[in-house]
């Protein structure tokens, strides 16, 4: 064992030190920002904690926000694994929610079946929207980075159009004078049942999503499908030699990724934590973007999605309590961005340091 290659324990120590330093750095910058505009950072911190978990009944709401975030992040992880950069979750989520709202308004059937149809059509909508980008990537060589981004703006307009026309999404029976573009409210039996726990109230979908995360995590790491996906993502030449169809796997992962974002949209609609069981203009409230950030922070560890999604959801629900501190609630957007940026640094530094050590080790061996 060469001295210049670190032991596993000191590698671990290095990782922890770097993460702590970078995380602190992000927090210090955020604190400075808050102080510069003339608020006290401890007030802000208390307001955030109060609003997200401490005050009675708040953490149920935080779970309600964390659920779609986690779903979006999980989908992102699947397409990441295949080496695709799907960053249009915001649009896929919106289209999914629109499909779900359409199904909800036009379905007749017993409650549980209708709910299932609503959620499935949400997933279908998202998958379709991501599939467009996937198709352009594999058959027209349009980089999916750009097509997914452009499709976000398109999705907002498509849904906006749907919300103005009663044959699509607009609530029927709304008088001509009623210019509010909202969809029909989901019938009570097509809503996701809620669960009350110690004064906190959250939708059952949260539990289902946690189970789904465990399932997908297992599938990514222990099944043939997961393995194929990693091969395609890491080395396409090897994938070709092994006879793994890059297009087929890539498209599949794109569909799954979009489907999960769409499902997140459906869950947002059917859980009622957003906009009271109705689709409204701007329904997605950047859950898609934040979900993407959750995936970035979680990296390749699916289980890490759960805590990260909860933290990011806390920033959102906590921001509602910021008004009393005299600071704009948008400060949480800044904090979010800074945290993500800071957490991108440690793995990169560790990669470089490890390479340097390996290089000098191989040199001293010669």
């Amino acid at each position, binding site marked *: 064992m060469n001295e210049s290659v670190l032991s596993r324990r000191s590698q671990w120590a290095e990782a922890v030190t770097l993460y702590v330093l970078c995380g602190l750095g992000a927090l210090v910058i955020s604190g400075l*920002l808050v102080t510069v*505009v003339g608020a006290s950072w401890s007030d802000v911190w208390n307001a955030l904690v109060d609003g997200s978990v401490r005050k009675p009944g708040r953490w149920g709401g935080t779970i309600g926000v964390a659920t779609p975030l986690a779903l979006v992040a999980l989908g992102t992880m699947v397409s990441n694994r295949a080496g695709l*950069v799907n*960053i249009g979750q915001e649009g896929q989520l919106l289209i999914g929610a629109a499909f779900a709202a359409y199904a909800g308004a036009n379905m007749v059937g017993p409650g549980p079946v209708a709910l299932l149809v609503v959620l499935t059509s949400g997933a279908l909508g998202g998958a379709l929207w991501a599939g467009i980008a996937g198709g*352009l990537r594999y058959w*027209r*060589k*349009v*980089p999916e*980075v*750009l*097509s997914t*981004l*452009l*499709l*976000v*703006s*398109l999705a907002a*307009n*498509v849904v*906006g*159009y749907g919300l*103005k026309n009663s044959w699509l999404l607009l609530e029927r029976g709304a008088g001509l004078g009623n210019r509010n573009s909202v969809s029909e409210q989901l019938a009570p039996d097509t809503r996701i049942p809620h669960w009350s726990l110690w004064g906190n109230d959250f939708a059952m979908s949260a539990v289902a999503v946690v189970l789904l995360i465990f399932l997908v995590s297992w599938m990514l790491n222990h099944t043939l499908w997961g393995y194929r996906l990693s091969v395609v993502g890491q080395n396409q030449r090897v994938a070709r030699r092994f006879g793994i169809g890059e297009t087929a796997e890539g498209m599949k992962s794109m569909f799954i990724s979009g489907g999960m974002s769409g499902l997140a949209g459906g869950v947002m609609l059917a859980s009622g934590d957003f906009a009271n069981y109705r689709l409204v203009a701007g329904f997605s409230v950047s859950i898609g*973007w934040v979900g*993407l*950030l959750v995936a*970035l922070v979680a990296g390749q560890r699916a289980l890490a999605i759960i805590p990260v999604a909860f933290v990011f959801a806390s920033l959102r629900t906590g921001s509602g309590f910021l008004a009393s501190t005299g600071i*704009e609630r*948008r*400060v949480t*957007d*800044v904090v*979010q*961005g*800074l945290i*993500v*940026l800071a957490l*991108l*640094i440690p*793995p*990169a*530094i560790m*990669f*470089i340091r490890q*390479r340097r050590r390996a290089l000098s080790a191989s040199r001293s061996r010669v």
Partner: protein
Amino acid sequence: MGEFFSAVFEVLSTEAAFTAAARFAVLLAFAAAGEWVAERAGTLNISVEGMLLGGAFAAAMGFHITESVAVGLVCAMLAGGTVSMVQAQMSHRLTADPFVVGLTLNILVLGVVGFLESELKPSTRLASVVEVPFLVDLPLVGRALFGQPWPFYLIYVVVPFCGWLLLRTRWGLEVRAVGENPQSADVSGIHVNHRRRQSIYLAGLMAGLGGGYLLFGQVGRFEPGMVGGRGFIALVAVIFGGWRLRATIFGCLLFGSVLSFRLTLPALGYQLNNELLSSLPFLVTIVATSLFVRATRQPAALARPFIRGLK
């Protein structure tokens, strides 16, 4: 549908429409010219959106404090440069994924700018219109090209400058080498990631300037949503142009005129669907790139990070 095409035809024959189209196109051109250089170095920066927005906000603050458009534009360039510095350092010194960094930067800049705007509330106005004598009287395009707010004319410097820099200087040759074959460039003594970082700085300065132009030449008042995905369209324009400058500028003109339909068509009295009009630019960019994208022209190392010894 027929009505739509007759509307487009009428737009193409009025001076006001050309003026509006030029304004939109020039914003794209500022961003696209710098990004063109950066992409030829093998980098793909989706943070252009954030550079534009950062530039626009810094311009607003610069003007708010000093009451001078020129100072505002300088601030805009600095802000764009700052965003690009983060992008460049994180993705081409450290080895973080460039798309991840770019995306995070976009969200971060939007957050910072939205927050600061609501705290500081900068007040701004449009820059004064300067008419170039004689040229402004040209039929149809005279006012569009020579009767605009003065920051508009910077584009006549920026585009040739970027072209000259990349195609006529040693630095540009090295940048192109880095984009085509970083391994060979590295062996012949070019510091690959150095050149890439520099090209991103250039893209940042230009996009920042574009943001300043957006504020002083087009909108006049700062809003956090004012860029609205047009940075992405500028990126697409480079791809649409097959990584050549003239075709990229043509792409900017095309996409810019589609963007301007939203203003010009209703002004001409056409009652078109609002959603159709605002989604048209994105639809057109997607369709146009999928029809015309030619992967063979792509810089061979586009969007592939360079780490010495790893291929």
